[in-house]
């Protein structure tokens, strides 16, 4: 304390000390109020796949130059179709793995023969840009087993999600960090 040595308490000092005490008490009360309202619970961002329309903004609006959003595959929902509309262009020339037949702009979906007539489709996340083209294709004519999710090994968990701001369907929501994914399930 750097008060001048004075015998009597000056008016200004009395006011100042009083105000200090009051504001400390107010800050303390605010702290108690905030602490009682807050929880040791963190929020993370996630895409509600049942709201998502696959508009493609996830690929372009994430603060990361390579989006934190990737396509994921709920295998138990997949029909393992030969003519996968998430994999092939509409009206493909041939059901082959050539790039010209594929819907995915980065060739991130791997097509593998399992048994007649089934094919398995897996996502190579290192190539996926989260554009959602396959999501729209799969949902349009297939079972809708491909969907977009925010991958938490990549997401920076910004206070305000840059994709969420521009999401036309309000599909990007805060979820508890303890349950950080909103997965599609068969027959919800």
């Amino acid at each position, binding site marked *: 304390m750097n008060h001048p040595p004075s015998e009597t308490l000056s008016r200004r000092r009395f006011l100042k000390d009083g105000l200090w005490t009051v504001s400390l008490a107010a800050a303390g009360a605010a*702290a108690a109020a*905030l602490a009682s309202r807050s929880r040791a619970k*963190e929020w993370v961002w996630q895409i509600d796949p049942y709201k998502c329309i696959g508009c493609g903004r996830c690929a372009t609006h994430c603060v990361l130059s390579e989006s934190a959003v990737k396509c994921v595959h709920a*295998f138990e929902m997949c*029909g393992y179709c030969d003519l996968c509309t998430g994999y092939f262009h509409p009206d493909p020339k041939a059901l082959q793995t050539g790039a010209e037949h594929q819907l995915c702009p980065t060739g991130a979906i791997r097509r593998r023969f399992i048994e007649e007539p089934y094919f398995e489709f897996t996502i190579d996340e290192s190539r996926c840009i989260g554009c959602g083209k396959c999501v*729209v294709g799969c*949902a349009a004519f297939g079972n809708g087993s491909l969907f977009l999710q925010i991958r938490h090994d990549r997401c920076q*968990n910004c206070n305000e999600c840059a994709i969420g701001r521009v999401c036309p369907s309000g599909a990007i929501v805060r979820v508890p960090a303890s349950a950080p*994914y909103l997965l599609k399930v068969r027959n919800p």
Partner: protein
Amino acid sequence: MGLILSAAAVQAAERFPPPQFETDYQMPTLTTPPPRAAVWEFVDVGVLAAALGLASWLTLRKRSRRGIAALSVFSLLYFGFWRQGCICSVGSLGNVVLSLFDSSYVLPLTAAAFFLLPIFFTLFFGRVFCGSVCPLGAIQDWVVFRPLSVPAWLETTLRLGAWLYLAAAVLFAAVGAGLLICRYDPFVAFFRLGFNTPLWLLGLLFLGVGVFIARPYCRFVCPYGLLLRQAGRLSFWHVRITPDECIQCRLCEDACPFGAIQPPTAPWPESMRPAERRRLVFLFGLLLVLMSLGGWLGYRVHAGLAAAHPTAELARQVRLRQAGLIAEPTDALRAFDVSGRTLQSLWTQEADVFRRFAWGGLLAGVFVGFVAGVKLIQMSIHFKRTDYEADRAGCLACGRCFAFCPRHRIWETGKPTDSGETS
């Protein structure tokens, strides 16, 4: 056909039953990498508390500009580049407001701690957070090469912009239209080393201006800094230019790049008192006028502000489509169509958004008017000062003035051997 089907993206049914495999095919599982472990959030709070403690010690006891500068580099690296600017105390203001108005959002303890810790430290030690812990301040502090002095009236007037920004940020967070402070954080693009052109330009602008006008964001924009200013006014201890006594040598007069050093004041002649008293009464009247004017203006602009809310924008597009002005449905309209929401619920929500913006705009306007009025009153009150002192509100606790004070130099040289000798 394709369009209609793709519009119904999420409503896809199970068109093809999942196969019964005859081979021993093992179905892969969907991986779900977890977010950062919660313990790291508490590490962040620990680092913040430790940095604030160290900053207080360096500023008030050690009086070391070098130590403060070193700590600011650490803060820049840790809270800036390592934590990528999130979580930060400045942005936590938005979380606090959001949690007060949105019952579904529970404030995380870490956000509460980031909001409250710097305020408590400021009440005790002055704005040591701004001095060396805030990463936004630290990055600007390193480009203060040619600071020009800003006249006090201009500084005060420009700071009104920060109050306006604070009011807007609180309003937007309260009505659920987004966290403005985080959205327009000018340095977050640097911290993330990502390329977002508009934000890079904003950051470069602030750094460029910051070469001549020291720390422009802290002084004229930062809403959290305004809270700390008020806490700083009441700080129990705070930065003192001289370690012991002011010898009125005036050497520190131009030391502060932020214009936070206040010279001694001459006593006012008695004859001016009645006139000053009349002026004060007039200014109190003006305060009421400014508050009413602010409220009126805030109410006038509320509709324009509300258009920034996604619900209002969607309702606008729906009305345009009804009027036949939108041929190709926008993504928002497609999403609305497949969501199954009724028009009635949309109108209700829209009306609610406008109602909240109307109230919020009114209150924000009254608040800004109040601040402007109080500023005028403040400027016409005579404060008695006999020494050169750091302004408790404006001092950013950077410690640059220490080296300008001859008493500090003596204190410094005498310190290791016998500090009692120097007083």
